[in-house]
């Protein structure tokens, strides 16, 4: 635990990072941080990410997981779609690629003379000639989120597939006999039965969203147009090493940690308030 306590102490000093000397200045760094527009903006961006990324990723991967495990024919044995194994492998591919490569690759794809604009202008949409997807305030953040989600949907799909396979097939058969359709089965059987996995996925994806450093640094190293994609770790790195203000950077680290812990706490709380501890299935 000592590094955490140390960091908290440093956050109350004016340490430059390059000398052994530091003075205690109390909560000055924290006060300044909340007056710093760039930091506040980055905090806001991380909060947006932590709300949007886990929800979209988990919904998408739940749908895919359901389709490849129990979404198949409604007659005979409970099974997934045809070629489910193939889909499973293919959608796992992005997770194998390192984050930095994902970021750099998609940056090229969304470049003004990249693949996306090539395809769109090929369809006759001339307004996309030289359109800078990552350079426009309106699209930079959505595009960045899309890239992160693309990288993780396959992984969480596999996680949920494993969980769904653990549900006894008899329960699905019973649901089918009772006349439940595919959507009803998913909502009333699958999700309640794999609730713990969803919660874990939510927390993991949330922690990733509170970082997002690699993706943002690869796609929009400067923080994006009008700082629309800047995230806290980017500001932290710049403050520590370019501006030589380790005290202030430590304060950012402490805030980042507090936000992360609060987020994890909230997920646990909401899960237990909505009956996550009960394990019964209602049809």
């Amino acid at each position, binding site marked *: 635990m000592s590094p*955490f306590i140390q*960091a908290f102490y440093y956050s109350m000093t004016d340490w430059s990072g390059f000398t052994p000397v530091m003075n205690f200045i109390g909560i000055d760094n924290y006060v300044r941080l909340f007056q710093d527009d760039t930091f506040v903006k980055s905090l806001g961006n991380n909060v947006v990410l932590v709300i949007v990324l886990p929800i979209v990723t988990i919904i998408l991967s739940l749908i895919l997981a359901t389709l490849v495990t129990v979404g198949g024919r409604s007659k005979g044995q409970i099974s997934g779609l045809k070629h489910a194994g193939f889909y499973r492998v293919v959608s796992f591919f992005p997770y194998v690629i390192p984050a930095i490569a994902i970021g750099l690759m998609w940056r090229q794809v*969304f470049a003004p003379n990249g693949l996306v604009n090539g395809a769109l202008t090929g369809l006759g949409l001339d307004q996309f000639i*030289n359109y*800078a997807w*990552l350079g426009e305030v309106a699209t930079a953040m959505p595009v960045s989120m899309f890239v992160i989600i693309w990288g993780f949907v396959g992984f969480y799909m596999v996680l949920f597939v494993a969980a769904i396979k653990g549900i006894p097939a008899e329960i699905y058969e019973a649901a089918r006999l009772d006349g439940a359709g595919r959507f009803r089965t998913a909502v009333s059987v699958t999700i309640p039965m794999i609730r713990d996995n969803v919660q874990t996925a939510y927390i993991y994806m949330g922690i990733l969203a509170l970082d997002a450093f690699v993706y943002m640094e690869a796609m929009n*190293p400067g923080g994006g*147009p009008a700082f629309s994609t800047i995230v806290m770790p980017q500001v932290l790195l710049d403050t520590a090493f370019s501006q030589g203000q380790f005290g202030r950077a430590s304060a950012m680290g402490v805030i980042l*940690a507090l936000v*992360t812990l609060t987020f994890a706490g909230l997920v646990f709380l909401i899960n237990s308030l909505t009956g996550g501890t009960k394990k019964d299935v209602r049809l």
Partner: protein
Amino acid sequence: MNFPKKPVERRNFLKGALATAALIPLGGALASCAAGGGAPNGGNAPEGEVSDTNPFGVAADSTVDVVIFNGGYGIDYAEFAGELMAENQGVTVNVAPSTNLAQELQPRFVGGNPPDVIDNSGANAIGIATILAQLEDLTDVIDAQNIEGETIRDTLFPGVLQPGTFDGKLAAINYVLTVYALWYSQSLFDENGWTVPTTWDEMMALGEQAKAQDKYLFCWGQEAASYYLELAIASGIKEGGHEVRLALENLEADCWSKPALQEVFTALEEIIAAGYVLPGGSGTQFTAAQAQWIGEGQEALLYPSGSWIENEMRDQMAENFQLTGAPVPTVSSSPALPYEALHSAAGEPFIVPSQGANVAGGKEYMRTMLSKEAATNFTESKLSPTIVRGTVPEDGFGSTALVSQVELLEAAGENVFTWSFIDFYGMNQDHLVWMNSFLDGEIDAAGLTTELQAITDAIRNDDSIEKLEVQ
């Protein structure tokens, strides 16, 4: 280590794992911040005999620890100087490359055992303001004789020590001379009968001619949008004189509203509005943008940049692209400084930390670097001039860009200027964001002025940041 007496329950284990996972970002962010408490141990190297050929008394059997930024120039030139010094003084010189100077050297500064010489350059350079008090004053190196027997000070271009001088202390010797200019292909201009614009009005006219050929005047890349701010500042200083430069350097209130700067911003705004700038730069990687200009397509005519551009883009240069530099345009035909006035600054700051184990060795290494032999080797292999004069032959080692740099410097004479506030306060990252918006046409000259002023004001009003007074 104690082992738990009863087996860890699966549930508790998972809870612990979750808690650990939640703490990982914190650890990742801060693990590298732990300060060592080591006592300073430097400055006690055995001293050799002091003479004209060994002015700092470096001991023959000592070692010199050199860390070089491994960027566009590589490290072979530094190794060359190391070998030269080893021959002359009988020392061992260890040259190590680094691309993450601040991150790698931070613990060594805190622990009191920094290297003897550092080439503090690149995106992750250590902010000079942070370590200023821990650096040697290198004036005695400049006053020493070089290996060829001349006093080093007399062999340097004028004004090159200024960027490394802070409050009267020569804390860094900037080794490479960078000429900032508008770069273009002489052959392309000759073919079309174009001349390089000397005022912003002529620039507009050239923009129209370029458009007729389906070309653009300028192009830009996301990480290098601030090259256009450099262009604007240089043009503004030429128009309004040193008063403009000092206002910016000293972070004055309303410094960005100076009429000279405003006229340049407005001229740029008109160029952007007229569509003479290749759109989409804010989403283009900067080397890709530079390739649009310098590569086979030659989609843009001009590109403002430093003279490193030749070395950076050598592989992608179109055939028969005669890379040539021109001074940036002025607003009127009667500017405060002549059209030939030039933004040129010495870059690649070499520093010698006072706590290094072999300070004499560090200074001797700098003396070797500044010798004619080492400087000529650099110029020949990197096609960039150093701060040492007279190392570029007539043919510029076959580089048109190198020849034009020397011509630009000669034409400018004493009218060479530079500024340091952007690097000193680390403002580039913030400037970039708004320059991208400006070049995109998202904000106009007034909007840009507001944002730039806000960045300046924030630093001026932050009393925790030490200010540099420039006169």
